């Protein structure tokens, strides 16, 4: 199955590049999404875990990450079917776009499945490079600026992570392996001084990919300038895969008894991310950038949850699932809004409910989901994180946490309400009426399904999924 999930896109890419037919390309992207989710389910819920490949396996930690990636990619691929039809680009560009999207998903899947830190690193960088074309897809001044910053900052970040890997190699003494299982086995004997230094480099390197402040600068630009399905993949899938690598490295420090140090840095970066998000969201002018800052906020919450430990590990996994589903839904809906109003300015969008009821309600419900309105899954996760903070007697942290979340909630709410309600100006109504015909069922159905899942999971999580979440939380 792992062979299937990793080799299928390579064959599909060759076909897509050879047969430059828009219809064929779209369906190849969808076919890979179906293969991906089928293979992921078989791998995670079935018995076959390794498939004899030396560097890739499904274990207790990465199973849930793989399933989340599959679901997000499937939603993005279905949306993509409608989205590509709205584009006026020639077939050649669509074929490149489809090819790079599959390579991007392949790189993320590889990062998640990898059992070796070195291989994870290589594939993480491959994900950066393949998504650069996707961000540059519109070929405007802004998209080239965003893509340049993205490739440059992430490549330097990931190079710093490599320095961290070298330092880890130094600290590991005679152990000449980067295999996670081997590292966990021997971590207790590592040179602590070099290990701590290695963690700083890796946290900043992979943290740059994850979007943690203060190394988040590429994120708002890249998320806002890329096509919506790509923004959804970047935010809901790529950040998670970088987080998985950080989780695995964190575990090495836990075994080597440097937990206090690692937790302190994670906590610091987490709160800094929340602070940055709160400051920028408060006066945001561009709704796609707002979503990007919301991603930074949620990555901050994940870092804080990881730093808290104990019961918060379970909350972290719930939050990761909830954020991925809600953010995919929001980014995809933002694509509808952009198609309707042809602008990313908050100022230019009002009366979304009048313009297109479906997109308007999806926008509002997605907002409720992301701001942890009960019974959204994010409500449970944030509640559990706050509960852990109180149980551990971190009262000041808890107050700051709630305060920052409230500011962010206000910022998001202000923008969403302004966009969704209000009157639609008459001069825009005719243009919007024409644009509305472009929106097909594919452009709202995935969001609807994701939101239903999100609100149902808040009340009831099926046993099989709960089992995987518990297993993952247990291995953190």
């Amino acid at each position, binding site marked *: 199955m792992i062979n299937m999930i990793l080799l299928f896109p390579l064959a599909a890419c060759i076909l897509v590049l050879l047969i430059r037919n828009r219809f064929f390309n779209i369906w190849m992207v969808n076919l890979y999404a179906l293969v991906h989710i089928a293979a992921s389910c078989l791998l995670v819920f079935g018995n076959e875990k390794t498939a004899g490949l030396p560097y890739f396996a499904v274990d207790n930690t990465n199973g849930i990450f793989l399933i989340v990636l599959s679901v997000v990619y499937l939603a993005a691929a279905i949306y993509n079917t409608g989205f590509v039809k709205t584009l006026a680009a020639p077939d050649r560009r669509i074929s490149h776009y489809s090819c790079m999207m599959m390579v991007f998903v392949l790189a993320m899947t590889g990062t998640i499945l990898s059992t070796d830190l070195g291989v994870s690193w290589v594939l993480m960088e491959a994900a950066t490079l393949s998504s650069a074309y996707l961000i540059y897809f519109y070929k405007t001044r*802004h998209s080239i600026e965003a893509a340049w*910053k993205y490739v440059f900052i992430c490549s330097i970040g990931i190079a710093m992570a490599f320095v961290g890997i*070298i330092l880890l190699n130094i600290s590991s003494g*005679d152990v000449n*392996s980067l295999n996670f299982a081997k590292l966990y086995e021997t971590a207790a004997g590592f040179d602590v001084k070099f290990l701590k230094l290695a963690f700083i480099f890796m946290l900043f390197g992979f943290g740059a990919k994850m979007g943690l402040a203060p190394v988040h600068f590429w994120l708002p630009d890249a998320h806002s300038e890329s096509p919506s399905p790509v923004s959804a993949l970047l935010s809901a899938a790529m950040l998670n895969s970088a987080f998985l690598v950080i989780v695995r490295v964190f575990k090495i420090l836990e075994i080597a008894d440097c937990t206090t140090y690692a937790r302190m840095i994670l906590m610091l970066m987490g709160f800094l991310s929340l602070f940055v998000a709160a400051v920028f969201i408060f006066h945001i002018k*561009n709704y796609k950038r707002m979503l990007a800052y919301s991603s930074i906020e949620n990555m901050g919450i994940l870092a804080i949850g990881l730093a808290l430990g104990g019961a918060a590990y379970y909350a972290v996994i719930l939050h990761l699932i909830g954020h991925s589903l809600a953010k995919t839904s929001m980014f995809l809906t933002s694509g509808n809004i952009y198609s309707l109003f042809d602008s990313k*300015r908050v100022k230019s969008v009002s009366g979304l409910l009048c313009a297109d009821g479906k997109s308007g309600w999806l926008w509002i419900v997605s907002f409720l989901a992301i701001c942890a309105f009960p019974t959204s899954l994010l409500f449970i996760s944030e509640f559990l994180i706050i509960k852990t903070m109180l149980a551990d007697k971190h009262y000041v942290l808890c107050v700051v946490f709630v305060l920052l979340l409230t500011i962010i909630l206000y910022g998001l709410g202000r923008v969403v309400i302004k966009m969704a309600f209000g009157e639609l100006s008459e001069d825009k109504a005719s243009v919007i009426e024409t644009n509305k015909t472009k929106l097909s069922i594919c452009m709202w159905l995935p969001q609807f399904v994701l939101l239903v899942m999100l609100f149902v999971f808040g009340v009831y999580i099926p046993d099989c999924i709960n089992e995987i979440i518990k297993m993952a939380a247990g291995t953190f």
Partner: protein
Amino acid sequence: MTTGLIILFGLTMLYLASTSRIIAHIRILIVQGVLLFLICACAGEYGSLFNLAFLAAETLIVKSIAIPWFLCRVLRQTHSNRDAGANIPHFYCLVISSIILLAGFLISNYLTSVKMIAPIYFGVSAATIIISLWLITVKHKVLSNVIEFITMENGIFLLSLSVAKGMPMLVNMGLLLDLFIAVYILGLFVNEINKEFNGLEVSNLSDLKDYENND
């Protein structure tokens, strides 16, 4: 012998800091590639013939031929020969880089007690990485930034040589492939930036902000 080569490698960074012609920077990349190959060959820790062939391919073919050739092509297409008007005058760049390099040597003295690493490699590579990062913030042209990114990667390569046991082969291969593709993509973007903005000034790339309206 190896120590001399490593010191020479450190000195190339000073040359990079003190010149403004981009073609000279590209020539420095060729020199660094050759020096890295000689360091690997002299150190004699390449193990099998396959490893030696790989290191030769990595340092000579990719670092000293393929990447500089590609950058020269980009340079010709963009007609940008000088990175004049850096944030800090070249003399001060040279002074600051020298201080960083000196600090690198001092660190290597301090690290003689750590058995897993070769101190001089570690000191010079750390200095190279820091000088490269610092020059990225100082220089004004995007092409210079790409060159400093490559010198930083060269520094990291030297750092990986400092570990006595070496990095796993697969990781080295992946690193090389990623570096090559990253440089290729950045090179393509340099061309696009030149077309779109009529120049390679980094300051052009500052349209995306939060406090102004962007579409």
